[in-house]
């Protein structure tokens, strides 16, 4: 039946019409997984048995007329989200056997909404990466071209949706880890405003930057999923006590009369010419919808990467100190005494990229360097946030390419960390300022690789993001092709 290739809203129609059951849907999903997973490797763990049990339960609900926002919809979870009683690895050797005794808040919310969990998806270790090549559990391949990366760090979640190995998935975004893979895999990915979605149960990378968000096949599905996962959580001090609007109300509102800012600093040397061309086309589409595109400036753009690569590793170096082999996870058997045990455990338990970032972070916070690095970066961060606040006084939304290039080849950038970091150049500023952002497909390269356009709005204006993204998506009519797996 290929129910796995449909969207949430299409499946909900079929369910309401009695044309499909939750069990039918989950069966098609697992059939698809059987067919393509050995090539794509989107998942670290599958929850097949539980999924069928949950689908049964969903079918009972459906028969009783008890339809919740995601009843019977198969959803995949990035393995950075704690799932009670089910192994959660964060893509790392050091958590290879960790079974959380609790669920992340987002997982609880999805469950309450009736979602059926398919499995835990692959990711860069501890969310540190842009290609899903640093996972201890192997790489994930881009469904559009198996020789290429799917993006990262939520590469597994993106690939799973792109390959129809689930209907929607959840990822996390610290510097672009949802939006960049969404663009490279040709799907929709949103990073909400900082504090909009609860971080409780999200294994922390950089606490002041991390956010959880959805990967979906279209903007409508994104709105449906955001309705479920957004909201205040008293278990998180940085959760914002604001009501969640019905994001579906923003679909098809149109953007007539809007002003959309095009930041001149984002159109630089080194952007792939096809992406440049697709952006120009996208600008045309936006104008065709009745919006006015103006050039704006975000003057501190050139410093975003530097600020990010101090703050994120600094926070990470502290967040990852708990992985010491004492309470959970991997412990090296070679340590005869405590100091040795710590060093051997962490050295064997973490991969090189994680160690690199822990080193940068520890250095940036160390005695004598705190002012020069961490404090300085925090000050520039305030200036970056101010750039956006100023810009949003003049425009309703900002539009940029999501990535400078389409998906690069596996192994192409692994030896050059700095080059790898540059692939996040358009997404990082969003996390630093805390504003929300969405990536929407805007076409394919000549080689058939997906490209994405990014929209940004002010704090807590996810509704407006949905508004512009859905208007663009409808008008752009990017061909709904599927990867030829």
């Amino acid at each position, binding site marked *: 039946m290929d129910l796995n290739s449909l969207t949430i809203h299409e499946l909900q129609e079929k369910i309401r019409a009695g044309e499909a059951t939750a069990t039918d849907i989950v069966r098609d999903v697992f059939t698809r997984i059987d067919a393509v997973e050995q090539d794509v490797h989107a998942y670290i763990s599958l929850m097949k048995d539980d999924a069928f049990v949950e689908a049964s339960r969903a079918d009972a609900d459906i028969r009783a007329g008890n339809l919740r926002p995601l009843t019977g919809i198969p959803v995949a979870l990035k393995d950075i*989200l*704690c799932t009670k009683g089910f192994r*959660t690895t*964060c893509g790392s050797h050091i*958590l290879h056997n*960790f079974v*959380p*005794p*609790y669920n*992340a808040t987002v997982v609880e919310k999805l469950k309450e909404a009736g979602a059926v969990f398919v499995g835990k998806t692959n990711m860069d270790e501890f969310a540190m990466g842009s290609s899903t090549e640093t996972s201890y559990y192997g790489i994930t391949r881009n469904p559009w071209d198996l020789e290429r990366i799917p993006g990262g760090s939520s590469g597994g979640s993106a690939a799973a949706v792109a390959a129809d190995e689930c209907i929607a998935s959840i990822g996390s975004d610290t510097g672009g880890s949802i939006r960049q893979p969404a663009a490279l895999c040709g799907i929709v990915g949103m990073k909400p405003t900082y504090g909009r979605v609860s*971080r*409780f*149960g*999200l*294994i*922390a990378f*950089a*606490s*002041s930057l991390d956010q959880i968000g959805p990967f979906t096949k279209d903007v409508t599905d994104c709105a449906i999923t955001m309705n479920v996962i957004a909201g205040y959580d*008293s*278990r*998180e*001090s*940085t959760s914002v006590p604001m009501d969640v609007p019905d994001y579906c109300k923003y679909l098809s509102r149109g953007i007539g009369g809007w002003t959309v800012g095009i930041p001149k600093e984002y159109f630089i040397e080194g952007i792939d010419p096809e992406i440049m061309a697709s952006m120009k086309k996208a600008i045309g589409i936006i104008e065709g919808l009745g919006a006015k595109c103006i050039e704006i400036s975000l003057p501190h753009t050139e410093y975003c990467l530097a600020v990010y690569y101090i703050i994120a590793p*600094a*926070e990470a*170096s*502290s967040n*990852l*100190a*708990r*992985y*010491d082999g*004492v*309470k*959970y996870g991997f412990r090296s058997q070679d340590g*005869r*005494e*405590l100091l040795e045990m*710590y060093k051997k455990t962490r050295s064997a338990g973490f991969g090189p990229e994680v160690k690199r970032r822990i080193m940068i972070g*520890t250095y940036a*916070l*160390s*005695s004598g360097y*705190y002012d020069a690095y*961490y404090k300085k970066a925090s000050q520039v961060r305030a200036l970056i946030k101010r750039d956006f606040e100023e810009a949003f006084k003049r425009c309703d939304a900002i539009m940029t390419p999501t990535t400078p290039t389409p998906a690069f080849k596996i192994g192409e950038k692994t030896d050059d960390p700095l080059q790898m970091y540059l692939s996040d150049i358009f997404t990082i500023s969003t996390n630093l300022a805390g504003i929300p952002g969405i990536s929407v497909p805007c076409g394919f390269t000549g080689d058939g690789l997906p490209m994405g356009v990014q929209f940004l709005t002010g704090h807590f204006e996810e509704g407006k993001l949905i508004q512009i993204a859905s208007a663009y998506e409808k008008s752009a009519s990017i061909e709904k092709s599927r990867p030829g797996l």
Partner: protein
Amino acid sequence: MEYEPVIGLEVHAQLLTDAKIFCSCSTRFGAEPNSHTCPICMGMPGVLPVLNRKVVEYTMKMALATHCRINGACNFARKNYFYPDLPKGYQISQYADPLSEHGYVEIEINGGKKRIGITRIHMEEDAGKLLHDEHNPLSYVDLNRTGVPLIEIVSEPDMRSAEEAAAYLRRLHEILVYLEICDGNMEEGSFRCDANVSLRPKGEETFGTRAELKNMNSFRNVQRALEYEIKRQQYILEGGQVVVQETRLWDDSQGVTHSMRGKEEAHDYRYFPDPDLVPIMIGDTWIEEVGKSLPELPLEKRERLIIEYEISPYDAGVLTSSRALADYFEEVARLSGKPKIAGNWVMGDVLRFLNEDKRDIKNCPILPGSLAEMILLIEGGAISGKMAKEIIEDMYKTGKEPREIIETKGLVQITDEEALKKAIEEVLAANPAQVEQYRGGREKLFGYFVGQVMKETKGKANPALVNELLKKMLAAS
């Protein structure tokens, strides 16, 4: 060359909240290992801290009670280091932006008063407990204590002797206990003290090299350790040597401090503001509210009791050793109108009974009202002081009112002159030889007659009346 000691103390006090500082686990002492833990205080992946409001209030109370300035905004910081009793690999504490600063307490020393400055008071979380295996190179970790709220009180280096340090410590202790925010138990670890001590030539302004002292688990040990360390440093300096900056552990059994040099390394804690917690803003309204809830503090209470009830400073000291005891005394004093007498009974018999039982005044079976009544009965002459000693013991054992006990035991004092005269007549008639001797000049026999009259009346005769009547009747012949 005369040297003067310069001492600063760092006190950590566990706060008496029901729940921990960042999670809802119980803070109760003595539970099975690792049973008062949850993913949050255990530092599991993905968890987040949320601050217990009561911790802020209790810290504010201590800040106000010690004349500190409360900062309008304060923040938590992470103190990063690795140790098995620190599950997150960092302690959540306060660094650059503490809750309060620049206060003081007054101590009584050498018959006068001295102010000891308090640099800061801030909030932080406690770590777990590490137990060492006796035979093998292994340690055992119990995380029950991680996340119990602590306040850290840092003094200015204002103390100049071990005695002053002990007085400061006792003052802090009594304030904390009076505020009911800490139980002040040094043996159980809810009140801990580290000291910094150095010596400098008298009259000099610059500080000498200091040693940090740890592992002093009682007031006496703090004083002993400081006295020893001062002597040790003096010996070094007098010998022309240099004091090494280091951490030293107090060894109670040997009465010396040992260097920890070699085991200790300079820690780089890499403090930075905790991104998982948001700033605490404290406005004037909240400060006022907390200020209003402060009880009368020990120093002020003692001064008031001395003036209001005209009791001695010593008595005031004993009666204010706990807030509950002071309240008890005042209630008895108020109800009886006889503060000095009330003080004597409370400090004497009542405290004695309680100490024997190891009971707290809060659980005293004698209610203040009952004790006041007893005092009034003595004043009114219904019972004698001697009888009261018996009655009060009964009151403690049974919790009954004095009147009930008096009735049951028939202990009403005899004040009827006719009845007493009769008793005296009978005694004199029964002891003619002694009467003659007394009248002949042996005045010491008077006591014998008093005793006999008391025996005759089964102890119920009013002694003053007996004396008066006996004198008269013996004089007459």
